[in-house]
C-alpha cells in the first residue's frame, strides 16, 4: 500500500474526513506505518498514550479490564481509528487494543498531529466540528436515556 492509497483510507476516518487531501497526504507521509502480528497489543489500558492509529487492514479486539478480568467489548476493522482521546486530552488509554489477526496500521504520533494542527488551523476546526457532533450525539442519547428512565 503506497501513500496515495493510505490517503484514500484516511479520507474515510470521520475526524479527518473534511480535511483537504493534500494535508492528509502530508499527515500520511509524516506518519509511520506500523504492523502488528496476531496477539500483539497496540496499546494497553492505563498506559499513557502518545499516538493515534488508523487501521489499514486486519481486525483488532477492544478489551476492557473489569474486576472480573479482561472482557472484549467490541472489535475494530479497516478504516476504524482509535487513540485520539489519549492524544487530545492526555488521559491514559481507556482500553486495550489487541491484534486478532495480522494488523496493518498508520501510527500518527502526538507530535506530528499537533504540528499539523498548529500549521493548518482549518484542520483544527474540522476536528472541533467532528467532536462537537459527537458531544451532540452523546447528549441526544443521554436525553433519550433520561426520558426512557422517567417513562419507566
Amino acid at each position, binding site marked *: *500500500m*503506497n*501513500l*496515495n492509497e*493510505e490517503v484514500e483510507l484516511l479520507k474515510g476516518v470521520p475526524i479527518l474526513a473534511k480535511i483537504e487531501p*493534500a*494535508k492528509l*497526504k*502530508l499527515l500520511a*507521509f*509524516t506518519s*509511520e*506505518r*506500523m*504492523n*502488528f*502480528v496476531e496477539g*500483539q497489543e*497496540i496499546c494497553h489500558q492505563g498506559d499513557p498514550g502518545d499516538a493515534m492509529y488508523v487501521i489499514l487492514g486486519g481486525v483488532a479486539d477492544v478489551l476492557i479490564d473489569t474486576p472480573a478480568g479482561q472482557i472484549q467489548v467490541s472489535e475494530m476493522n479497516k478504516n476504524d481509528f482509535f487513540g485520539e482521546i489519549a492524544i487530545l486530552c492526555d488521559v491514559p488509554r481507556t482500553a486495550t487494543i489487541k491484534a486478532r489477526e495480522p494488523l496493518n496500521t498508520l501510527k500518527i504520533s502526538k507530535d*506530528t498531529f499537533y*504540528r*499539523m494542527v498548529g*500549521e*493548518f488551523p482549518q484542520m483544527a476546526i474540522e476536528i472541533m466540528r467532528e467532536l462537537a457532533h459527537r458531544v451532540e450525539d452523546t447528549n441526544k442519547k443521554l436525553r433519550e436515556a433520561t426520558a426512557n428512565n422517567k417513562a419507566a
Partner: protein
Amino acid sequence: MQRNLFTYIWRHSRPEQIVILGLVVLAQVFYFLSLTVPKAVINDGIQGNAFKDSKTIPFLVFEFDLSAILPGKVIRIFDGFQVDQLGYLVTMSFVFLGAVIVNGLFKKTINTQKGRMGERMLRRLRYELYERILRFPPAHFRKVKQAELATMIKDEVEPLGGFIGDAFVQPMFLGGQALTAILFIMLQNWLLGIVVIVLLGVQMAIVPRLRRPVLVLGRQRQITARQLAGRIAETADGVHEIHIHGAANYERADIAERLGRIFKIRFDLYQKKFVAKFWNNILSQATPFAIYLVGGYFAITGQMDVGAVVGVLLAYKDLPSPIKELLDWDQQRQDVQIKYEQVIDQFQPEGMMPETLQALPDGPPPPLGRELALAGITVSEDGRVKQLDSVSMVLPTCSKLAVIGGSSSGKDVLGQVLARLTMPSAGSIKIDGNDFFQLPEYVLGSRTAYIGQETYLFPLSVRDNLLFGLKNRPVAPATYDDALKDEREAFWKESVRAGNPALDPNADWIDYELAGATGPADLLPCMVDVLKQVELDEDIYALGLRGTIDQAARPDLTERILKARHAMHGRLQDPSYAGLVETFTADRYNRNLSVAENILFGTPLGKDFAGDNIAVDPYMQSVLRATGIDLDLQRVGLTIAETMVELFSGLSPDNPLFEQYSFISADELPNVRLLLQRLGGKGIDAVPEADRPRLMTLPFRYIEARHRLGLIDAAMEERLLAARHAFASGLPESLRGAVEFYDFERYNSAATLQDNILFGRLVYGQAQGEQRIGTLTSEVLNKLGLHNSVIEVGLEYNVGVGGKRLTATQRQKLGIARALIKRPQLMIVNEAVASFDGRTQDRIRDNILATAKKDDRGIVWIASRPAQAEPFEQIVVMQGGRIAAHGAPSDLAAKGGLYAELMASA
C-alpha cells in the same frame, strides 16, 4: 617566581646568554674583516698600490713582531706565497667572499641561538604558569575566568619569547657601538664630545619619560583585552540563559561598551605614541644642530680645524641608529616587564599548594590511614557567615556513615572539606596524627574518592574518562623502536632544558593494581563491574553496537563477531522473527535501504560516496548511464520533487516536520517550486543540465519501505540491481578504497557493530521489532561471550566537550564509576545521586554500600533525601553548620529530635 623579568631570564638562561655574547664578540672580528678587505681589494688589487715596487708580493706571511720588546726582533714562521697583482685580486676577492659567508653564518647561528633560547624560555614560562594553575587553591577558581587564564598563557606571554633573545645581547652590542662613536668624537674635540654627551643624556632622560604614558595605556590595553576574552567565553557558556531570557541585546550593549573602551585606549595609545616619536625625532636632530653651531664656531674662531668638525659629524652619523635602537630596546624592555608582571601577578594567589604535595610518586600509593580526626573545623568565607561551625568528630576511614540535614545545614561543605576542595578557615584534620592537608595529592587521589553533584568529563573516550583516576604516575614506560627512541630521548632532553618534566603521556599510566587487575588484559571485567554497579553497562553496550572495530587492529574480535552474525541468522530463521529484518543479499533489492545504499551495497569510506556526494560522483554517473537508468532515476527525482512541493509548500519553513521528513530543505523548496513551474509538466527531458544534479540527489535518499511513494517497482528494482553489479565489477583501482562492500563471509570495518551482526536492516513499521531484535542480539552475543567485547567498543565512544554527548544522568553515572574503579579506601558521595529517580538512587546506593562492606572500605554518604541514610551504620545529623546528632540509626531514632523530624519529612 621572580617579579623582575631580567632576574628570571638571567637565572634560567645564563650559560646560553654568555655563549651568544661570545659569538657576537667573535662575529665582530669577521664583520671588521668584511669591511677592511674591500679597501685592500680596491687599493692593492685593482689600483695596484702594493705592486708599484715589485711584480709580486708575499701573501699569507706568518710572523711574530716582537720589536716592541726586543727591537728589530721578528720571528718569521712562514714566508708566504708570492702572488702577482691578478692573483692577489682573485685571492682577496675570495677572501672577501669567505668573510661575507662566515659573517652570514655567524649571523645565522646567533639568530638561531637567540631564537632557541627565547622559545625555550617561553616554554619554561608557559609551563610554570600552567603548573601553577594546577596548584591554585580550589577556591581561587571561583574568582578567575578560565578564558582569561588561557589568554594569559597563550597570548600575553608570547612577546616575551621574542624579547628574551635580545634581553642582554642587544644593549651590550648597541652600547658598545655607541660608546666607540662617542669615544671617537671625544678624541677629536673633548668639548664637542661633552656637548654630544649632554644632548644624548637629555634624549635618554626625556624620551623614556614621554613613553611612560604609552606603557601605562599598554597595560590597560592588555587588561581590557583579557577581560574581553573572558566575556566572550561567558557568552558561550551562558548562551542558553541569554536566549531563554531574551537578553541578547543587553549582552550586545555590554560588549559594545567594552569595545568602545578598548578603542579609546588604543586610540590614546596611538596619539601618545606619535607625540613621543615627534619629540624623539626633534631631539635626535638637536645633536647635529649643536655640532654645526658649536663646531662651526670653533672652526671660524680657529680653535678646531674644519676636517675635525667633518670627522665628528661623520662619527655622529653612526651614533643615532644604535641610540635609537637602544631606546627602542628600553621601551620593549619596559613593555615586556609590565606584561610579565601583569601575568605573574595573576598566578600567585594566596594559599597555593606547595609543590611537594604534587610530587611524582615513585611507587604504589601507601594506604590512607585508619582514622580521620576533625577538630573545630570552621568554614567561613567572610568571617561572619559560617558554613561549618566548629565541627569535631572522629571518622574511621572504614566507616559507613551517612550525613543528613537540611539544604543549608553544611553537610555538602563537610563533604568538600573531606575531599580538600574547601579549605577550613579554622580547625584541623589529622589522619592518624598527621596533618590531613599535608597528605600528598596522589595518596588522596588514589585512596579516597569524591563525587559531587556535577561531574566534569574530559572530551575523551568513555574509557579514558573512566580510568582517569588511575593515572597517578607512569606505571610502565612506552615501548619505542630504536629510531623513535632516540627521537624521544632528544625530546625529553630538550624538555628538561626548558624546565619541563620529562614525563611521557604515551607511557602506561594506568595503575591496574588500584582497580584490582593485574594488567591490561584483565582490566575489562573490572570496568564492566563498576559500570554495572552504576547501571551504565547497558548504555555503553548500546553505544558499542553503534561503534566500529578496525579489523586490522582486532582480527580476533572481528572473527568472533562474524560467528555472531552466523548465529544471529540461524536464530532469525525462527518464524517468530519473520519479517523483522531484511538481510543484505547481493542479488536482491533491499526495500529498507536507500537507493544509494542499494547501488553501493556497502559502506562508504572517505568522502567519495558519502552523503549526497554519491549522486554527483563521476564514476557513479558513468555506471548509471551505462546501465541506462540515469534518466529514470532523474524522473524519480522529479516525482519526489513534485511530491515534496505538494506536501510541504504550505508549511512554515521552521516547522520541525521539514527537517524530519522533507527531502528538500525549507530554503531550497522555493527554487525547486520555480523549477517545476518553468517545466510546466514537460517531463525530465526539459530539465536544464544545471538542475539535474539537484534532482539526482533526491532518489538516492529514497527508502521505499519508509517513504512509501511507490516509486521503486519490481522492474526498477531489477535495473537498480543491475547497476549495483555494474558498479562493483567496474570499480576502478583508484576508488577501491572508497567503499567496503557487504559480504556475508567478511567483516566490514566501516560499518557499525550492529550492522555487522545483523547484516541487514530492521524492517520499517514492525511493532516491537527493534526491541525484539535487540534482545535477540544480546542473547546471541552473551552466548558467544561477546557482551563485554561490545562494551569494550562502547568504551571508545567520545563523550564530547564536557561530556555533552552523554545525557546528564549518564555523565553522573560515569563520574561515580570513575570513583568506584579506584576501589577507594574512603569514598565521599556528596549528593551525587540526587539527579536520578528515587528507585535508581536507592539501587546505586545499595550497590556501592554492598561492595564497600565486602572489601571493608569506608563511605561518607551525604544524603540528598534523609531516607537514603537508613542502611548506614552511623548517621550524622547536621543543622546550621554544626553536628546536631551522631550515632547509630536505632539510637538516633530512640532519641527522636531532629533525626526523627527529618526522617518523618522524607
